[in-house]
């Protein structure tokens, strides 16, 4: 991941969604997922509605649905609980493909998978349209304490330092005949992680001192991002509004 620039899930673009301020998108995404979670699990059609809603956002953001689907497959949390629920859930049970499944357990599994997947898709949409730098600015505007932001800024910077040092250590090893498979032995991995920490720390400290040498005082020079206007809030909050309508209808019909 490039410090402050982008991250692996970011999809370069200049659509309406990309241009919305990060704090607006965070709030909209959070409220939308909250509606999804609040929807009764038996309201099957409502979940289809959420999917359509997200698909509309992808169209606006020019995110190919295939891209979304691939990421969702990798990122989706196939929580062990969800896989086991149909077998371990309470009676009554029903037969399906030769398996005896719990009715409540299967509904529970559907609940987790549907809501979990919609949650992942929403987060992915946010991630795909928001570079790291904007995210930090968004958090700052959401009144996150300055100390937390300083740590977060440094963390993003140091993520590169750690990746760089890890790359150097790997290079150093394999060039002199080390067989990387051995790395997967617990002890060696653990020792490697320990020295990676020290190396990264010391490099990070030098980089930090170099920043101080060039007059850094703890905050990045302001980039002069434009302030958020009310119309942007209105555009973004349309999403959770529709979601809320779906959730309320779901609650009333089941």
């Amino acid at each position, binding site marked *: 991941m490039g410090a402050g620039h982008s991250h692996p899930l970011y999809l370069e673009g200049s659509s309406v969604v990309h241009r919305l301020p990060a704090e607006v998108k965070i709030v909209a995404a959070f409220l939308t997922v909250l509606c999804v979670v609040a929807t009764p699990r038996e309201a099957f059609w409502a979940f289809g509605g959420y999917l359509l809603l997200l698909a509309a956002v992808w169209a606006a953001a020019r995110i190919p649905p295939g891209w979304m689907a691939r990421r969702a497959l990798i990122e989706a949390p196939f929580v062990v609980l969800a896989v086991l629920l149909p077998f371990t859930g309470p009676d009554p049970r029903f037969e399906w493909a030769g398996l005896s499944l719990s009715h409540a357990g299967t509904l529970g599994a559907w609940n987790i998978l549907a809501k979990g997947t919609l949650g992942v898709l929403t987060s992915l949409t946010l991630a795909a349209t928001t570079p790291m730098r904007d995210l930090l600015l968004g958090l700052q505007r959401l009144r996150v304490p300055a100390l937390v932001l300083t740590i977060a800024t440094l963390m993003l910077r140091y993520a590169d330092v750690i990746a*760089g040092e890890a790359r150097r250590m790997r290079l150093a090893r394999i060039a002199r005949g080390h067989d990387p498979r051995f790395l997967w032995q617990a002890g060696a991995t653990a020792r490697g992680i320990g020295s990676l920490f020290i190396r990264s720390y010391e490099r990070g400290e030098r980089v930090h001192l170099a920043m101080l040498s060039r007059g850094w*005082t703890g905050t990045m*020079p302001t980039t002069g991002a434009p302030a958020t206007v009310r119309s942007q809030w209105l555009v973004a909050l349309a999403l959770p509004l529709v979601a809320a309508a779906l959730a309320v209808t779901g609650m009333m019909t089941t």
Partner: protein
Amino acid sequence: MSAHTEPASPPAADPAVASLDVRGLDFAYPDGTTALHGVDLRIEPGERVALLGPNGAGKTTLVLQLNGILAPTGGEVVVGGLPVRKPHLQEVRRRVGIVFQDPDDQLFMPTVREDVAFGPANFGVRGDELTARVEAALEAVGMAEHADRSPLHLSGGQRRRVALATVLSCDPEILVLDEPSSNLDPVARRELAEVLLGLDRTLLMVTHDLPYALQLCPRSVVVDGGRIVADGPTRALLADDGMLRAHRLELPFGFTLA
């Protein structure tokens, strides 16, 4: 090269005050290695001085004291009359620009341009002047065409050049360079020499390239074992075979002191 178009911050130094005054400086690393023993060094405004000496002599350690990155265990450093201590650090760092021995310690922004702009932006330069300074610094090291690349994805010599540009753009009164010519190709090395000769700034340069020291610095200081063992006109020092040999210095193959 002057990294900005107008000479906005000329040294304006009082000639009676040394540009850099190191007094009885001692330093030991936390693991116990004593790297400096009572170093005394006075550099006048506008002087260009080469810092020579074998590997492990203490050159880098000395350099890192000059803007308070390392704090002395004894003695003190005074920059243009200002002791290098807590309340003055920000001002000292504005005055003293250091190019580190390892460019990877220096570069950290996502693009070359942002990295070069970082220093002057911190010191309050904004808008067009900032842009002009960044352009000029990148031009001076021949990296203008790479301005929008990530410093992580450059060759060794290209990273060295960007590291130089990040400090040139700050336009400090005192420029301290730790082996600036290593990894540079021969023409870049000469161009750097021309840039440095064109600057009207106090210059302290660590180097292992004795002809380069002769070319750029009228005065040289030799460090060995954490002490200053010689200080004088560069040409005279380079002609002193016994001294050179005693401190692992020698003129390179094929070089003749004209």
